[in-house]
């Protein structure tokens, strides 16, 4: 299956994963998955539970080491790079289950995302006014405030992360991922467990992050309405294999996809 329609927008390749295979003992989670992501794409990965979607994201972010295949980011291989090194290259992610520092304020949680961008170390930080640490903190605070404005979380800026509602914590997590200044943002079920209104909001933010901030997004999402509305491209995984990768409307019409994911009878097609 070729992503033929996506070729109408010739853009540089940002991420190229080829032949990604991942096994845990006897279980093979991913079997030779190829995926090309161009700059500015908003790509959704869908598939039934256990299809390997999160594993695939974990391979990109460096949490898992694939047992086969390789990943190139902006033309260079990142197979041997650590998670933090990949973050420094511009790959950020959010988690399916929340992973915030519950006892820290929202601001501090987001500032953590900028840690790798801070240049002042322990010593200069100690000489707050003399060492330039104040200036540095102010410029980072400004960026963080822009993110806060984008995600409309002004009112919880100083709240403790652990006290927030689930939907708000998801937003803070997204804010932290944005603070990394990513070129590629990996979102693992950004709307899971949200009500309709919260979903509408998050969908709007994702579109703005992609279209206006120019950040490439790979998103795992189950809500087909959201996937079809937002994505430029949809890749479908089933039992660790990629079975489709095309424009949303073509993917939803694909009989194999309907059989695997939407639960329709393959024979009928």
């Amino acid at each position, binding site marked *: 299956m070729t992503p033929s329609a996506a070729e109408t927008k010739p853009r540089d390749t940002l991420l190229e994963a080829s032949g990604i295979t991942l096994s845990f003992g006897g279980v093979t989670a991913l079997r030779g998955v190829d995926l090309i992501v161009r700059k500015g794409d908003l790509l959704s990965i869908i598939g039934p539970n256990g299809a390997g979607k999160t594993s695939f994201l974990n391979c990109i972010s460096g949490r898992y080491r694939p047992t086969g295949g390789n990943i190139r980011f902006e033309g260079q291989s990142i197979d041997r790079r650590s998670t933090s090194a990949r973050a420094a290259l511009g790959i950020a992610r959010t988690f399916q289950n929340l992973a915030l520092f519950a006892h820290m304020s929202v601001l501090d949680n987001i500032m953590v995302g900028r840690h790798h961008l801070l240049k002042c170390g322990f010593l200069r930080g100690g000489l707050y006014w003399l060492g330039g640490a104040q200036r540095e903190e102010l410029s980072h*605070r*400004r960026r963080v*405030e*822009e993110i*806060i*404005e*984008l995600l*409309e979380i*002004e*009112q919880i*800026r100083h709240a403790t992360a652990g006290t927030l509602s689930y939907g708000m914590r998801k937003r803070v997590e997204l804010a932290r991922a944005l603070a990394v200044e990513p070129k590629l943002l990996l979102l693992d079920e950004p709307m899971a467990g949200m009500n*309709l*209104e919260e979903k*509408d909001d998050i969908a*709007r933010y994702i579109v*703005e992050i992609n*279209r*206006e901030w120019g950040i490439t997004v790979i998103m795992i999402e189950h809500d087909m309405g959201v996937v079809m509305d937002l994505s430029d491209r949809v890749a479908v995984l089933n039992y660790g294999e990629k079975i489709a990768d095309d424009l949303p409307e073509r993917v939803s019409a694909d009989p194999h996809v309907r059989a695997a994911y939407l639960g329709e009878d393959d024979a009928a097609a």
Partner: protein
Amino acid sequence: MPDELATCPRLLRHHGRHHADEPALREKALGIWQEMTWGQAYARTRAIALGLRGLGVGEGDVVGFVGQNRPDLLFTEIASHAVGALSLGIYKDSLRDEIGYLVGHAGVRVVVAEDEEQVDKLLDLGDAIPTLERIVYCDPRGMLKHEDPRLMAMAELVVQGSALHDREPCLFDRLVDATRPEAPAILCTTSGTTSHPKIAVLMSGPFLNHGMSYLEVDPKGPDDDYVSVLPLPWIGEQVNAVAHFLLSRIRLNFVEDEDTTTNDMREIGPDCLLLAPRVWEAMAADIKARMLEATPFKRFLYAQGLRLSERALERGRRSHIGDMLLGRALRDRLGLSHMRSAATGGAPLGPDVFRFFRAIGVPLRQVYGQTEMVGVYCAHRIDDVDFDTVGVPFRDVEIRINEPDRNGLGEVVVRHPGMFVGYFRNEEATRADVRDSWMYTGDAGYLNARGHLIVLDRMRDLAKLKNGDRFAPQYLENRLKFSPYVGECVVLGQDREQVTAIVCIRYSIVSKWAEARRISFTTYSDLSARPEVRELIRKEVAAINDVLPESQRIGRFLLLYKELDADDGELTRTRKLRRGTINERYADLIGALYSDKRDVDVDTTITLQNGRRQRIRANIAIETLIEPARSAASRSATVEAVS
């Protein structure tokens, strides 16, 4: 007023020249209060005005603005006056069709919209608003995807306006000199309690003159901070954020977001403030609810402090111990530490809430007015506050009571030189409300011996029980709403045997109450159907009944399965009840309240805020506190008929 200061643009020019480096306003953006001087405010307004001029806006055109209160929207208003146009403020939470009506009716040519949300509503209207030529947006966020040729960024408008100023440096001065105090300038929508809003036309000279009469009663100056929270299109905010801003140079402060208001207000510590009664009520209810959760020691301090303060207040004094125990801390917490002049207006405020704020040292006073009469024209003098009245009229204001009954109660009729000139493109409505230059307000009230005006309710809302006893539903509703558990309620009883009520619980507080008692629930509907909650509200109602005269007591009530909402047309944008809609929509429930039924089945759909519809099926129980006399009579009648 001297001629060079007789219109809004002229005043701004004066301040821009003579107070160029003094702070005029602040706006919180990216978490920081950003200050703007009079010089900057003047320059920006000039650029917007010339930008509008470049778009062809001139004498007699209408410029609309819609969005959260922002400096640029305020400047837009003054800028449109400068080029001879009229300004029309549109509430930011107006629905698409409401905006369509206003834009169409007023023939608006340019709308300045705060953000994408407002722009979307205008674009959705499509061809329905043919007069609209330009949509200027302030926040570029989310605008990339739109390609409508009418769209234009505020930044672009300002660039064009500045360029025009560079080419013709005298043009703006000429335009401002040409503004006339007796020309229509401000279009102000009335709250539209009944149907489509009417648009009152105000002239800038009389508008400012009336602002001066207000300042005589409630002086303000350049050292005063004002937080602009109420919607800018509302007349009350127009008087404060436009007239008083320009006349007495109070500093305006614009909050970051609606949700950050409490915190932002605390940071500013405003000196003067005007809030709607429901905001004061919500504040008081919130304090009460928080005290329910506080430690016993804090509750003790609260109770002692409040008792001392209230006792002192009754004797017209202040309790220093009460202030130390409670008042000072509470004022600080609410951001009211510097408060010199606090006002409530738009609807009656319950005396209990009033007493509470006065007791904790907030110099709260009631003000009263109408959009047509340039907002407030009656207010308490600061040393003469009477909870039951709305105060005494300003200088130049004449009030008489039309067709008073034997107690002096009748329709409030009023006139003053600053009042509106008529409704915009609505001669018929003008003729109905204004006769021989007197405005017939439709409010029922009377003047007491000390010259204070007392307003009970709308004339047509004053209700009469079947036996002829009069009662004021709003007054009862306010009493009910002082309970922290009651969010909204509707009191009924016109031509009926007794007074009844439809009550909406205050979800934020009742849900906490329920959680603390391990009462499980899912949604608002579910929570309001819990028998424990019904019992809770029953106690609240019974407590209020205890202090009411017999004819006013609430006999039966039920808990509604949803909150009353402006989007459903049940409330106005300033959250007044739309009784007609409510009576119609809940006719079944009201019928049940006046029957022998103990419960009523409901099967209906409600519209959620995002436009989706949800079906609700429920069985609503009706609580009876006082058995209506009628049922006994009718039952015996049936028995007779059978025998």
